[in-house]
């Protein structure tokens, strides 16, 4: 009996104009955004390779670059938005990369930012979730208004089987749309010889597919629930669209506003003051040593001890500044975490967090890069000190190439577990509510 319902439900959806229009929009967006994002990735990757080749690092100045993530083709996250180039000296560690890597030197044409904002995540988060709502808003309410609910239940059909059948049928169609969209994206990627995906990338893509499925199920069960409790389909659609706007746009933005008010960030003056205070114990010595160093340079005879102490004090100053900047960065992270915690009831926020993490295009990957930059700067300082201590040893050694460890796939999955669990719980709760409401529903 249940499969009769499932088959009918699937056929109903597949024949409906709303499904065909939704799928067409999805496929057009997916195709164009994937092609555009592949080209964008290829350009950024080429710029990265060129920049590494032409790296103008010398014994004083070192440039490091953040490579673009291949999965940014599907999930852009912050990969394009955050800077990719950092120039280090022992005098300074910038807290932020300086601009988009290659932007000034690249000969490649850049695509419009508006186009590049559309990616797989956008299609799932916005287009497919809307399609799910348009598919399911009348799942029960229209059956009631058309009299088919009574006609079905006049048979030997338990209500739970009817609801389950409708749920499974709709789910197949929704998942089918998601899988088709994913396959189209992947085929475009695979047919592009310049893009190669590692096995870990495939595992992450599976994860992206899984979390996208959970996200859509969340909206599907929500639509089913509203369709059960609201008898008029037009009202059900109105309620769902308002909920969608609230959950995807209003609520996350309200959370950001609330977090900004609840967790104040220090002002620029405060940060500057903190930097001064942090370096206060060294200030007197710093002034004395730098003056002596300049005098010695002018005379053309710089004692090694003085040069070494000069490097040490400058690096201490840079490190103290960096610590204050990092502290500010931590405050910013806390504020962001608070906003995310406050918006935990928004499936869209949970989805964004998980997909950015899985695609390695989120803040976590950026922070790993910045940690790598700091460790590289420490090596640079040691190398500079070696120059003042043992010039022969300095000449024999080279500063190692910049590298930072990427997050393992398993760890990526583990860190997104809360989002998986919460989205699953949302779906379960909404389905249970729909189920309970339907068992008690007046079907007349």
């Amino acid at each position: 009996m249940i499969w009769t319902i499932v088959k009918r439900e699937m056929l109903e959806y597949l024949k409906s104009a709303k499904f065909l229009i939704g799928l067409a929009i999805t496929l057009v967006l997916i195709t164009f955004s994937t092609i555009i994002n592949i080209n964008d990735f290829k350009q950024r990757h080429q710029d990265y390779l060129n920049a590494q080749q032409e790296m103008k690092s010398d014994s004083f100045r070192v440039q490091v670059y953040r490579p673009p993530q291949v999965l940014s083709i599907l999930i852009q996250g912050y990969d394009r938005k955050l800077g990719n180039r950092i120039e280090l000296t022992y005098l300074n560690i910038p807290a932020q990369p300086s601009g988009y890597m290659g932007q000034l030197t690249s000969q490649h044409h850049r695509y419009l930012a508006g186009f590049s904002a559309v990616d797989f995540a956008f299609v799932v988060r916005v287009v497919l979730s809307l399609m799910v709502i348009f598919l399911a808003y009348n799942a029960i309410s229209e059956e009631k208004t058309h009299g088919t609910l009574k006609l079905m239940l006049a048979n030997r059909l338990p209500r739970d089987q009817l609801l389950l059948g409708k749920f499974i049928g709709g789910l197949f169609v929704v998942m089918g749309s998601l899988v088709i969209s994913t396959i189209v994206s992947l085929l475009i990627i695979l047919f592009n010889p310049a893009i190669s995906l590692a096995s870990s990338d495939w595992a992450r893509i599976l994860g992206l597919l899984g979390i996208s499925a959970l996200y859509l199920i969340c909206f599907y069960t929500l639509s089913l629930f509203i369709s059960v409790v609201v008898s008029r389909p037009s009202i059900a659609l109105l309620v769902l669209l308002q909920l969608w706007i609230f959950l995807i746009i209003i609520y996350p933005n309200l959370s950001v506003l609330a977090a900004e008010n609840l967790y104040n960030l220090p002002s620029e003056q405060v940060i500057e003051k903190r930097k001064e205070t942090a370096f206060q114990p060294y200030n007197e010595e710093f002034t004395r040593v730098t003056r002596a160093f300049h005098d010695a340079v002018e005379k053309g005879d710089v004692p090694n001890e003085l040069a070494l102490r000069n490097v040490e004090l400058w690096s201490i100053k840079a490190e103290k500044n960096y610590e204050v900047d990092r502290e500010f960065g931590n405050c910013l992270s806390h504020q962001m975490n608070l906003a995310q915690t406050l918006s935990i009831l928004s499936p869209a926020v949970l989805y964004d967090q998980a997909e950015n993490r899985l695609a390695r295009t989120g803040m976590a990957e950026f922070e790993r890069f910045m940690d790598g930059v700091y460790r590289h700067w420490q090596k640079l300082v040691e190398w500079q000190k070696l120059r003042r201590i043992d010039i022969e040893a300095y000449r024999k050694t080279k500063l190692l190439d910049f590298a930072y460890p990427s997050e393992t796939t398993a760890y990526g999955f583990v860190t997104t577990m809360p989002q998986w669990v919460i989205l699953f719980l949302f779906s379960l709760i909404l389905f249970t509510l729909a189920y309970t409401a339907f068992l008690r529903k007046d079907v007349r």
Partner: protein
Amino acid sequence: MANQKPILKAEDLSKRYEDGVLAVDHLNLEVHPGEVYCLLGANGAGKTTTINLFLNFIPPTTGTCYINNIDVTRDPLEAKKYVSFVSENVMLYGNFTARQNLDFFAKLGGRTELSKEDYHQVMRRVSLQDKAFEQRVKNFSKGMRQKLGISIAIIKNAPGILLDEPTAGLDPKAAEEFLEILRELKNEGKAILMSTHDIFRAKEIGDRVGIMKEGRLVMERTREELQYEDLVKIYIDYMRSEPLTV
């Protein structure tokens, strides 16, 4: 007929809604195989509530409905095996063809063995034109939809049929065709309970006619009795009489 066991039976059936309205008040009726029972009454008299009680869409406050001697409240799923239902204005699934609609409801009714030809036969029986079989139902007139609705009831092949104002909104020709189908079903031995506003057709088709007012069955006449009485006059007299609750 009377010596056969009734297929549809209401025993001291009452339904009081949560807002206090007594929709059905101690109703007793029986519909035997090969019998058409017409329930007449104004809007809100309790006709549709009675049908809803038979289908277990709402629980009775007191009393019991039996379908094929099965207590509907105790074992609704088993009871529904023995009854078909045709409602007043069923839209069916507009994107599906007539045959697809029939196939779906036949399967829900437990008829999984039927072929395309079986569906065509049933649709021909209710005078649906062949060209309509594979047409989408959203293009159907109300009369065609009602014909398809009755073919859904026929294909289930249940001994009892519940009809909730099935001729409402039909033109005279379509209504007459509909009654002809009911006559055939009656002759096949189906027990038919039909709620209607249509006094003339109730007299024409009904083996027994009951008039409901404020939930009570205030009058019941057999076809034979009605040969000597004017049903219209009886009906109007009951409708004009003082409210029962005063």
